[in-house]
């Protein structure tokens, strides 16, 4: 029903000239236009996940800047793996909980949380602690494990990726909050905000088969989350994205917040100990204009708790 009414709205919108607002995903970027005095990037460290977020979002103008009363919000953490929170292969459940709470406080009508997991979704949702966290906070878990939930969308600026099947919740949401965890990655070197969005599409294998870095960058030109919150509380420094044991994890107690996912990735790369351009998809996305990776020219707010 929602899917149908959405499509109807798009087609009606095209007739009446409001198609741009309804149909163009760039509206997400427009909605997050930085206001005066608000930094491009907020970096917080030395705290627990909840405290890091509280201070970070405050520095970015508060959740009310992103979530308006009655809106439908999607929070997209990384729930890829059937491993426990201390292994840091999934987004920290405490951070997810805090974000859902902030959204509801800001007046969100519904807050959905989902991921198209790598391991079996039931195990991953449960073991990651995110299922419980979302329930406790009053959010709703949605499944991402069935092709029926995904719809084909075009990627107009994509070079390798011309179309993908994207989760319907992303199409329906008023606000998208991307909450990746910073990790090492065997194939892509690093996984942060852009790579986390692979979890909103159905066929990831196709990306791997068709120039992974280019596909990640292509998708970043299409879908711009309103807010990216990089969980760098526990960081999987090697053996990512799944990790082998807690010996692979460093407790960095940090968090990065930005409306630009390329900026978030560039800063995360630095935090990890890599130059942004050493990660191909960050370099390509920057070159394609999907976002800004030139940290030296951006307004950065650094907070140490």
């Amino acid at each position: 029903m929602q899917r149908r009414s959405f499509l109807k709205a798009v087609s009606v919108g095209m007739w009446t000239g409001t198609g741009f607002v309804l149909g163009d995903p760039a509206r997400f970027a427009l909605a997050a236009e930085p206001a005066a005095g608000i930094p491009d990037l907020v970096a917080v460290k030395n705290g627990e996940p909840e405290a890091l977020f509280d201070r970070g979002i405050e520095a970015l103008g508060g959740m009310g800047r992103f979530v308006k009363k009655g809106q439908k919000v999607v929070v997209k953490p990384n729930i890829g793996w059937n491993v426990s929170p201390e292994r840091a292969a999934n987004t920290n459940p405490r951070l997810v909980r805090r974000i859902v709470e902030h959204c509801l406080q800001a007046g969100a009508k519904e807050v959905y949380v989902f991921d198209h997991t790598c391991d079996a979704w039931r195990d991953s949702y449960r073991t990651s602690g995110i299922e419980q966290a979302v329930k406790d906070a009053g959010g709703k878990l949605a499944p991402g494990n069935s092709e029926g939930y995904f719809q084909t969308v075009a990627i107009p600026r994509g070079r390798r990726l011309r179309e993908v099947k994207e989760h319907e919740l992303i199409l329906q949401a008023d606000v998208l909050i991307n909450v990746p965890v910073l990790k090492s990655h065997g194939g892509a070197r690093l996984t942060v905000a852009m790579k986390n969005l692979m979890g909103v599409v159905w066929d990831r294998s196709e990306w791997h088969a068709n120039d992974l870095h280019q596909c990640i960058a292509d998708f970043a030109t299409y879908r711009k989350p309103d807010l990216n919150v990089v969980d760098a509380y526990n960081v999987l420094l090697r053996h990512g994205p799944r990790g082998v044991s807690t010996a692979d994890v460093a407790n960095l107690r940090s968090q990065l917040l930005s409306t630009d996912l390329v900026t978030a990735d560039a800063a995360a790369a630095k935090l990890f100990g890599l130059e942004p351009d050493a990660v191909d998809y960050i370099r390509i996305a920057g070159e394609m204009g999907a976002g800004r990776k030139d940290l030296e020219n951006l307004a950065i707010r650094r907070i140490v708790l």
Partner: protein
Amino acid sequence: MKQPWLKKIRVVVALAFLASTTLLFVDFERIGETPAATVALYPQFVPSLLKFTQTFAWAATGFLAVLVLTLLFGRVYCSMIRPLGILQDIVIHIADKLRKPRKVKFRYQKPHDAIRYGVLALTVGLFLSGSMLALSLLDPLSNFGRIAGDLLRPLYVVAHNGLGQLMESLGIYGPFPLQWKAPSPATLAFPALFLAGLVWLSVAKGRLFCNLLCPVGALLGLVSRFALFKIRIPEDACILCAQCSIHCKAGCIRLKTKEVDFSRCVACFNCITVCEAHGIGYARPRPVKFYPAPPVSLPSNGPHPSHRFSSLAGEKPDDAREAESRAPNPARRTLLRGSALLLVWLVGLVPRDGVGIKPRNRVPTTVINRKVWPVAPPGAGDLARFNDLCIACHLCVSACPYGVLQPAMLEYGLSGLLQPYMDYTTGYCSYECNRCGQVCPTGAIRALDLAAKQIAQLGVARFVRDNCIVYTDHTACGACDEYCPTKAVHMVPYRDGLTIPEVRENLCVGCGACENACPARPHRAIYVDGYPVQKLAERPISKPLEQEVKGEFPF
């Protein structure tokens, strides 16, 4: 002998067993770890017997309980506990409702002792010589498991997910979709053909399967000859109305001699319920002096009273029967010829690497992967041992949350037909899961605890560089490394800043996550070759990180 309550008990118990067993096979998540599952599986005869030979555990003494029950009351097992028997009863019941009412529902059938005991001997003989073929094709639980797990489960999943979609259209997420990974279609032919045959046989001949082809039925038939209580027709009450005989699904009541062939009786108690004269029911054998045997020769001035009813009870004269059985039967020949052709077709359907797969990668891969050994589930240990214990009931296939366990065609050879193997094209073995060993009702898959399962080496990953995307397309991938739980598969520098997989065999557990994730087609660039005898992998050792705590932000 007023014992009409017996049938009521039978129906209630049977429906409870059927419901829990069916649910176990179609939606394991729902009841797999509840007492209902334990109760449903405990008395299943062959699995329990096989497990007992492995474990000598109390939990595996169900077959003893069944033997004791049979020694007391006959084959109660066949109508109350064994799901395949209950399924036949339901088919018979429905067919009866659909048909025009008829007086004679069933006829007395001759015991086919040569066939039923022959099947039993063949099954035991093949089992002792190390082949499970006869047992897996004929065992009632195996067949029920395959009907419920292989045929009914996909329908259940479709219905369940349809409901999910309906709820989604109302804006509610839930119930979350279930997954069903399709096995090789040829393996579905076995339960499908068996079910068709079983339905036909039940509609035409009642419980003939149980007294002709079922090895458990034959064995319990032998045991029930010695039962303490038997269903009998004492001389005094019977009015020769023949109701018992025409309602007997097993065709084992012979009015001529007022005998119940208790070795074929499946204890459905229908005869007791329909007998208005209360002339049939459970009774202990009485001393001969109270109930003398009926006279062998009769007065010549009329037929024996029972002869009046023999035509009603469907008994044909013996010579007519013989002539019937000797005549050539064209239908049977067609059937045999058809089955032979079917077998040839099925063998042709065995999947081969890369056949019928469209590549999505730019450069289709060329090196064909030849697996020397199939990969058996974790806890199978030695392939020969595993193949000798598995009855192919497919409970593990239903229970596997990752859809990696699939029925084999000829991967294990003919005697391992339909036994589960690890199909890494449909799934992979989760590092955090040991469920198949926990649920295996025969002990063919040993119940390893998680720590032991995590070092069970089922086989080893083989990397085929010439098929790898990094090599053929010169772009990054690393899907195999991403999924590897032990980092046996890890990325090493290749060229131009790219990395390419490498396998450390000592760390590989053969879980197939790499093979499953590999996007190269039609032939994958990494695959797991099984071991005939599973080994132990080294535990992954993680050295501590040299963690730098920076005071400043690096930007």
